[in-house]
């Protein structure tokens, strides 16, 4: 079933086929499917009754667009592969709780300003060099300087002390609640100082394309535009792991081709699957495939309408509220999208521990929308048109954002707002337009990441009103919000943080710099022989050392 000429799978003794996982198969009914998927998010990683078997090649479907394999200096969907190559100090479980990884244990000082990590003593890089505290200190410095979220994650880090080769002590200038979440392999991969510390720019380092790593798989081959091959790290510091012999990532340009390859059995595992919401049920009907929406909580993708607050008409809160009242989220999510996505009501993803309930939901009310527009001074003209506006939308998340834009156009017409849709030529031209503030309102989406400090603050802080996409492009500035986020970002008291973020979410849902329409449901499709696929919060963006093949 694989490309056997290139990668002969290791012969394995026949094994009885285990029962299908109830947790990862999706029943026919959409509603039940949704409930199942959401339940998944809350459950622990599924454990199998069958003993994991060693060996085999996992073929993963990927999209073209991979630039290099070093997550220390880039972020985004194309970075995930680096997690197989590099270990991090910790990983997190399904409840965002840190678990030992390269650090076998750690101590946090009483004032929260000093974290001592004790590394696994005999861990080695793929070239045999021992992994030491020096490498940890070096990696953190590289990430802080070169990663897009480097400042958000490690601004509070004063220095990293290395009292002995297996102890790294991170010293902070102020309490930093997002520190542990920032030490997972995707965000802070431990990279070898003796390779990347040769004085060359880490962003363009030639070894980024063929790295010497520290993780469960080592780099073997990258045929650009075709595939990447990773091989089992025989010397991995967790005894007996990983189970797989090899991971092959095959690149396909079109999502439909990836899906076909999966159905033909040429591909086993397809995270971030480019399938339409309506197709999820029919994929679940295929007995060879499993569909899941679990495992993306740490990314927490939220979709929203972003208003340019600098110019009329959306500088007026009444107009923004009119838009919110004109949109029927129930219709959007349940009728148009078949019930797969969750509606979104606020800036935090529902899976975030700081998510607040009871935010203003702006239940659809066309009369109220019309009244608000009247109050704002937008009276209907002879044709019944109050206002003519242009709505941009990006080319990604097409079901949520493209279809959503068409729906909003139809709804706003009912309250006298004539919307012209501006279709995107491509992602860069849309990002350029929004990033240069040259728009009225746009569909948009961002990842909230496991801690709001990393993924959410950037969208709202007055100091982050920048001409870059996925910063505070809407031009929102509220001193109270700045103060709330500032305090929530520098206290370790979870209850206090929850209260602060609660007020922040209420203010945002009242002032509507962004109006949230839904949470993007990412989908993983895998072959039934793929066992124990990662379902914790980082999903496919965590090490696949526990995944095994039942064939």
């Amino acid at each position, binding site marked *: 079933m694989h490309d056997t000429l290139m990668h002969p799978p290791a012969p394995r003794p026949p094994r009885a086929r285990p029962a299908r996982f109830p947790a990862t198969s999706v029943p026919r009914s959409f509603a039940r499917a949704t409930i199942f998927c959401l339940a998944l998010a809350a459950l622990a990683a599924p454990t199998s009754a069958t003993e994991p078997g060693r060996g085999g090649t996992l073929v993963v479907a990927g999209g073209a667009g991979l630039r290099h394999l070093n997550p220390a200096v880039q972020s985004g969907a194309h970075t995930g592969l680096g997690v197989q190559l590099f270990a991090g100090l910790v990983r997190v479980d399904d409840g965002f709780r840190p678990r030992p990884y390269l650090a076998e244990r750690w101590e946090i000082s009483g004032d929260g300003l000093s974290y001592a990590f004790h590394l696994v003593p005999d861990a080695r890089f793929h070239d045999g060099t021992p992994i030491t505290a020096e490498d940890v200190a070096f990696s953190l410095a590289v990430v802080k300087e070169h990663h897009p979220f480097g400042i958000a994650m490690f601004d509070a880090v004063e220095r990293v002390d290395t009292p002995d080769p297996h102890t790294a002590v991170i010293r902070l200038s102020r309490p930093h609640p997002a520190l542990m979440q920032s030490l997972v392999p995707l965000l802070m991969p431990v990279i070898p100082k003796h390779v990347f510390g040769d004085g060359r720019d880490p962003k363009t380092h030639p070894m980024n394309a063929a790295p010497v790593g520290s993780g469960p798989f080592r780099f073997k081959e990258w045929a650009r535009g075709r595939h990447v091959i990773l091989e089992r790290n025989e010397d991995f510091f967790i005894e007996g792991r990983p189970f797989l012999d090899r991971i092959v990532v095959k690149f396909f340009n079109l999502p439909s081709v990836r899906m076909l390859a999966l159905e033909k059995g040429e591909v086993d595992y397809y995270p971030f699957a480019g399938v*339409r919401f*309506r197709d999820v049920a029919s994929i679940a009907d295929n007995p060879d495939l499993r569909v899941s929406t679990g495992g993306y909580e740490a990314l927490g993708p939220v979709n929203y309408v972003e208003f340019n607050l600098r110019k009329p008409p959306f500088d007026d809160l009444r107009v923004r509220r009119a838009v919110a009242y004109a949109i029927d989220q129930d219709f959007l999510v349940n*009728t*148009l999208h078949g019930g797969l996505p969750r509606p979104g009501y606020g800036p935090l993803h529902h899976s975030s521990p700081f998510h607040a309930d009871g935010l203003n939901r702006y239940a659809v009310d066309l009369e109220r929308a019309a009244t608000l527009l009247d109050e704002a001074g937008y009276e209907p003209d002879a044709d019944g048109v109050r206002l003519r506006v242009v709505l941009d939308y990006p080319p990604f998340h097409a079901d949520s954002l493209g*279809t959503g834009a*068409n*729906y909003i*156009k*139809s*709804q706003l*017409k009912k309250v006298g707002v004539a919307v*012209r*849709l*501006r*279709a995107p*030529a*491509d992602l860069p031209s849309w990002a350029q337009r929004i990033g240069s503030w040259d728009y009225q309102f746009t569909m948009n989406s961002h990842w909230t990441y496991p801690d709001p400090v990393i993924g959410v603050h950037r969208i709202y802080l007055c100091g982050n009103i920048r001409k870059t996409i996925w910063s505070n492009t809407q031009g929102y500035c509220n001193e109270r919000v700045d103060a709330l986020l500032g305090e929530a970002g520098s206290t370790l008291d979870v209850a206090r943080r929850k209260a602060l973020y609660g007020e922040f979410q209420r203010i945002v849902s009242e002032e509507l710099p962004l109006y949230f329409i839904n949470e993007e449901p990412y989908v993983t499709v895998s072959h039934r022989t793929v066992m124990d696929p990662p379902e914790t919060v980082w999903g496919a963006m965590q090490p696949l050392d526990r995944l095994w093949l039942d064939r």
Partner: protein
Amino acid sequence: MTPRAPGPVRQTWGMVLRNGSAVSGLALLASVLAMTLIVPAFYPADPFDIVWRPLAPPGEAPALPLGSDFLGRDVLAGIVHGGRATLAVGASAAAICVIIGIAVGAAAGFYGGLVDGGLMRIAEFFQVLPALLFAMTLVSLFGPDFVTIATAIGVVSWPPIARLTRAEFLRIRELDYVRASRAVGASDRRLIWRVILPNALPPLIVAATLTVGAAILFEAGLAFLGLGDPNAMSWGLMIGANRDFALEAWWTVTLPGLAIFLTVLGVSLVGDGLTDALDPKRHDR
């Protein structure tokens, strides 16, 4: 005075009406035009309004005899109102194409020499570019709106018209009546517009007619690839927007496809009929 023979227009008209394919083409076109220009007044539903659940089959809702599309919009409203944009893009693109083509072809054929050489190299440059890819690039660069799409189609399709015009001009400019006009001192402008062009028109009219059909198909192709104007409902846009749902909801793409097919068929039949009618060698038949 002897009784005058019927004028050329009436003569042609007579020939067209005696031509079976032309008559059926005209009938098709007339019904398409009627549907596009008159029926919307009796069926004023906005094709962009979401009125029902998505992908409802024809007949599910009494108000939606042709069902709903992937957003829950009325397919019948799309068919009825989408014709206007489709035909407008087709006609505008053909007009742009014909204007560029005749201007270039006439200048090249009339002046010859360096002008001819230069213009024909430009035409060849456009001819060797893959038309669809070139049009896609233009639409992607300037954004999918009505003007860009019509211009892009016109800009990539003019070389055949230019070459045809040039060939006619090369032939006609050496004929005796042109020499005679030149001898009595007619200006270049007069020679081009009043003497040669009218005599070169018959094949150009046929070519222009067929260009309209080709432009409609072209617009549908661009829309299918996602490069339709999202603010102007057209048959191509309907197909493009619903193409992912073709297998589960045939009516969302088949019906607009049928409308395009009938329109282009009508245009082609009329074009064929005109070819026969305007062919001087066939006047005796």
